[in-house]
């Protein structure tokens, strides 16, 4: 049955244009060994990454493909937990970058990983408010004021778990299914504030402002990354992670992430 499910998931992914090639790739790795030291990476690489990594990973992908003309990277962004489920059901991916250790744990628990996950960046919660902060929100305490509409993430997803860990006791009007959805509600003016990551506010700087709050230090989110067991292209997967942890870190810190 697992095989059937895996096939179904694979078919769906292919349909959705996530072109993860499940077949035996022939990476032209006959000439160059995949040893570290700037050897060219090649072939198809499929990276499953948390939605909050979208902007920085897109940039890292461009940089890496510019250096390795034979490399083609496909990103599949989404809620970490959903991606973890897809991976555990046999989706053909090489790399998984999660927005929380808990979602990474579900992948390692099911034995879908090849190596040990490493934390490559950290992210902190901020309060996203409309541009110019019309409601004058200065901290967590303001969010409990009557008449103020707040969006939080659902506890099932990392940003919601982090909010709970930071001791947030606000009654929201909605518990969104991922961090970008919570942010969208602020952008559209449907809520006055939402708890999202600092990186999300940075990415949407033209529409929203961020309000830092000290309690968020108690819930800094670690982002682990790992090579997957059934990776069709292990060499490129390892190269990708190596780059993310070295030169690629610039793109991540510019996006608002903290180095681990």
């Amino acid at each position: 049955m697992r095989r059937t499910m895996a096939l179904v998931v694979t078919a769906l992914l292919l349909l959705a244009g996530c072109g993860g090639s499940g077949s035996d790739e022939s990476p032209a790795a006959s000439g160059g060994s995949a040893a570290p030291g700037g050897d060219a990476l090649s072939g198809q690489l499929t990276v499953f990454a948390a939605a909050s990594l979208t902007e920085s990973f897109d940039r890292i992908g461009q940089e890496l493909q510019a250096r390795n003309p034979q490399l083609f990277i496909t990103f599949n962004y989404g809620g970490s937990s959903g991606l973890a489920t897809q991976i555990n059901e046999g989706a053909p991916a090489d790399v998984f970058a999660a927005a929380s250790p808990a979602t990474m744990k579900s992948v390692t628990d099911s034995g879908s990983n090849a190596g040990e996950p490493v934390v490559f960046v950290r992210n902190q919660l901020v309060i996203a408010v409309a541009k110019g902060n019309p409601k004058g929100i200065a901290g967590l305490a303001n969010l409990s004021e009557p008449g103020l509409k707040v969006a939080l993430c659902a506890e099932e997803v990392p940003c919601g778990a982090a909010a709970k860990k930071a001791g947030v006791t606000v009654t929201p009007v909605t518990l969104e299914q991922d961090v970008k959805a919570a942010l969208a509600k602020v952008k559209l003016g449907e809520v006055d504030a939402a708890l999202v990551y600092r990186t999300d506010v940075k990415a949407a700087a033209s529409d929203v402002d961020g309000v830092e709050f000290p309690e968020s230090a108690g819930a800094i989110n670690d982002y682990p990354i790992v090579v997957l067991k059934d990776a069709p292209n292990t060499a490129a997967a390892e190269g990708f992670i190596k780059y993310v942890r070295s030169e690629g870190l610039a793109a991540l810190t510019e996006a608002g992430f903290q180095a681990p």
Partner: protein
Amino acid sequence: MTTRQRVPAALLVPALLGLAFLVLPLAGLLIRAPWGTLPARLAEPQVLAALRLSLLTATLATVLCLLLGVPLAWLLARVEFRGRRLVRALVTVPLVLPPVVGGVALLLVFGRRGIVGQWLDQAFGITLPFSTAGVVLAEAFVALPFLVIAVEGALRGADARYEEAAATLGAGRWTTFTHVTLPLVAPGIAAGGVLCWARALGEFGATITFAGNFPGRTQTMPLAVYLALERDVEAAIVLSLILLVVSVTILAALRDRWVGSAT
């Protein structure tokens, strides 16, 4: 009536493939369902709250669709007016619009900054997003075309001579509609209503975008299933099975009662 002839393989094979394609995923759900922990999971208050909300909102959305959709279908089927083809095309737009986009569109109209929503908020203090009314609205938006198309088809297929006879006997348009047309197309309306209800029950994208997700208020079964997937797959399977059983039971009951089951 089926004729006693050999079914040509060229039809039988794709027919069976189509059937397998539809049934296999359901079988997959049944096979992977955690039967051992089923009773414990069913008793979770959040599950019952989501189910209650789903049934309530889908039913209210269907009532709303009937009130608005039957007259609209009648207009499209019985009244000649300029631009009728364009109106008919517009009615089917929500069918092809991704539901998430439908949700955003609803926000742009009924949201706090929306054209209508702004006015509702200032004049009456009514905000539709993040409320149960918002869920009903989102579901009605995606389900209404199903009803309109079904009822319009029934009206076009109905014999207009009955209505003409009523008119020659002195019945006005309204009397003709209530006493002749409605009974005539009642099965079509029932079938459309059932389809509409089923579509509303499974609505996810527009609901989560427009009404958000809050347990007991806007968290319908499909939303609960989506979030359960984030937690563990088995919980999501259980929730899906409940939704399946409930909807199949209700649809089967309705079919036998009102919609002449053509077997």
